[in-house]
């Protein structure tokens, strides 16, 4: 099946990797079927949503510095509508988990995530938040934040280059553009690596 052309201004669909994953996602969505009115409305809302995703200022270590670089003048994620970083989880749409998450920090991260309002997204930035990265062997490092919260986009690197982060952001924009705003999928509840059925509130 063709991927519906999910328009991102600066990049063609073919230039993205991981299109397969989105194809599957579309299939899943289409199974449920939608009526034409809400679909058009969806597109409009999603156009707005995907171009004003506000990130939460969250950084625990090294990757956070690269995150600052993305926010600063040269790379400037405001160009993509990511505009301002929010200092309160209540006002943010997406959390960039940039940096190592340790055992002591894990419950704090979980709480911050819970405090964010729906719809919310998570981007795991860097080796540490994907799998523990260089600290995988450590006794005090969580081997991947997906053990405690659901992750939408993984951006590998140690630290990822700013360009890689921008790419990850665009991937999230594409995902948002596909969603049915009126029937948002429930985000799974995760604790200690096990996914529970049901959603978070």
């Amino acid at each position, binding site marked *: 099946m063709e991927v519906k052309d999910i328009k991102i201004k600066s990049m063609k669909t073919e230039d993205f990797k991981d299109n397969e994953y989105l194809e599957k996602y579309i299939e899943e969505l289409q199974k449920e079927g939608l009526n034409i009115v809400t679909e058009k409305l969806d597109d409009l809302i999603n156009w707005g949503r995907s171009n004003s995703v506000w990130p939460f200022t969250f950084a625990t270590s090294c990757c956070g510095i690269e995150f*600052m670089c993305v926010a600063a*003048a*040269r790379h400037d994620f405001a160009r993509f509508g990511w505009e301002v970083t929010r200092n309160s989880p209540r006002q943010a749409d997406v959390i960039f988990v940039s940096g190592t998450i*340790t055992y002591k*920090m894990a*419950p704090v991260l979980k709480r911050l995530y819970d405090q964010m309002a729906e719809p919310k997204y998570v981007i795991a930035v860097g080796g540490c938040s994907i799998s523990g990265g260089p*600290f995988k062997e450590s006794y005090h490092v969580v081997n991947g934040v997906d053990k405690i919260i659901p992750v939408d986009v993984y951006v590998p690197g140690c630290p990822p280059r700013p360009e890689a982060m921008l790419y990850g952001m665009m991937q999230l924009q594409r995902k948002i553009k596909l969603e049915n705003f009126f029937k948002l999928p429930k985000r799974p509840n995760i*604790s200690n690596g096990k996914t529970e059925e049901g959603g978070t509130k």
Partner: protein
Amino acid sequence: MEKIQEYIHKLAPKAQFEEGGKYTTAIVEANDLRKVAAGLKEKGFDYLMCLTGMDNQDSFGVIYHISSSKEKKEVIVLKTNTTNREEPTIPTVSDIWEIANYYEREAYDFYGIIFVGHPDMRRLFLREDWVGYPFRKDFVADESINPIPTKVPEPDDYETVPSYTINKDGKLERKVKSLFENKDCIVNIGPQHPSTHGVLHLRTKLEGEIIKKIDPQFGYIHRGIEKMCESMTYPQMLYLTERLDYLCGTMNRHALCMCVEKAAGIEVPARAQYIRTIFDELTRIASHLIGWACMCNDMGSITAFIYGMRDREKIMDIYEETAGGRLMVNYYVVGGVAQDIHPNFVNRVKEFIPYMRKMLKEYHILFTGNPIAAGRMKDSGFLTKEQAVALGVTGPSGRASGWSCDVRKIEPYAAYDKVKFDEITYNEMMSKGGNDYGRDNVLLGGTFARYMVRLVEIEESLRIIEQLIDNIPEGDFRAKVPAIIKLPAGEYYQRVENARGDFSVYIKSTGDKNPYRVKFRSPCLSLVTALDPMCRDQKIADLIMISGSLDYVIPCIDR
């Protein structure tokens, strides 16, 4: 040297001396420790550089690296140990050197060594409900014993402070008190706060908006780097040093490289020495730029943040061309540097120097000269020289208090003995640049002084680079190094000056390809502990500015 040995011998007749190390090393019995420590303090040894816990399999040991703020080159190493593995106790020195308050808590956290008489024997990094002591050689990491916690601790868990004394029968007695009273108003700043520069948690006692006490909580980014190093080879460890204090990556790596090189007797070619020095200074500039940008950002000047980050990108470009990395440069290796410099390197750096000089002027116009900023920075966050020494506050912050503690001058390494540069202490700064921007506002040991020292240090770094860049000698950029590096059995200690102060590496080797114990002395721990004396009776709004002026990096503390 001889004199000090005699002196220690007089204090503790049973003391033994180790030969062959870089510094005078004395082994004293635990009972004599306090006597010797107090005696040394009296002799002027007022700066406790580093305190290292150690598991010797049959005993637990503690190693003290002590130096003096006057006789800067003198370093004495004290060692003591206890053979009781069930209930290891060692007398405290926290009343002799203030910083030992925190260092001893760290040793307790890692090894379970109880410091008798210490007023506050809480863990420093790990949660109170953590089972076991991770740095003991017999510790097994097991997720069923220590699972990922799901709840944040209750306030009581932070506040219950145990202390230990030895009673008449020679038994250990535990007393518990509470750090705060019930009626106190405690405000939590962090662990997630945009202006704590990392995941630091400050429990702040307030009266109205006046700060009465700050209790810092560490460990939210404790990654167990030192423990991981014990099962790694030396070249593998290099990658972790850059991730300690990522803004001073190259310098931290330099410290470990030098430590290993000196221990293994590897001669580093002059070309590599020059390149390393230039890279170190570039990193210092980049780090100070971030420090400046973030401090201004904390005070509400977003423009300054954007300027600082913009100019830092120029340095990132220079890095990238030669080394391939941006933030993590991964450039130094044991024996030299990983590859030769890029043909453009020299030109790029030469272009950068005048550009940076021009920008520094602009920074001053933009922010330093701003009356609102100057008014706020003028009379807040004072740290006297005595406090700085007692807490081991080194680097630009220590120098702003008038303590000349620049390791580049004390123990010159790489190419620092071949260049002319000034150590930017408060006085030096005033004669160089402070006067242009309101001499009366820049007071000794205050926030403004720390701010200015950092900016003047950038100029000084440019001066160092200028002297070196045209004179990089020809030759190898890397010495021949055996494929497997083994250090002869012994202990090694190496200091460098990173952008925040005295960063040191301690390695104990048993002759194997991996170390027995590694310890990194973090300059940032001292900076955070200094927050409490500096912020007392100041407004809470200024706390953010003061911590910005200290410019600490949390992962360096937590390791």
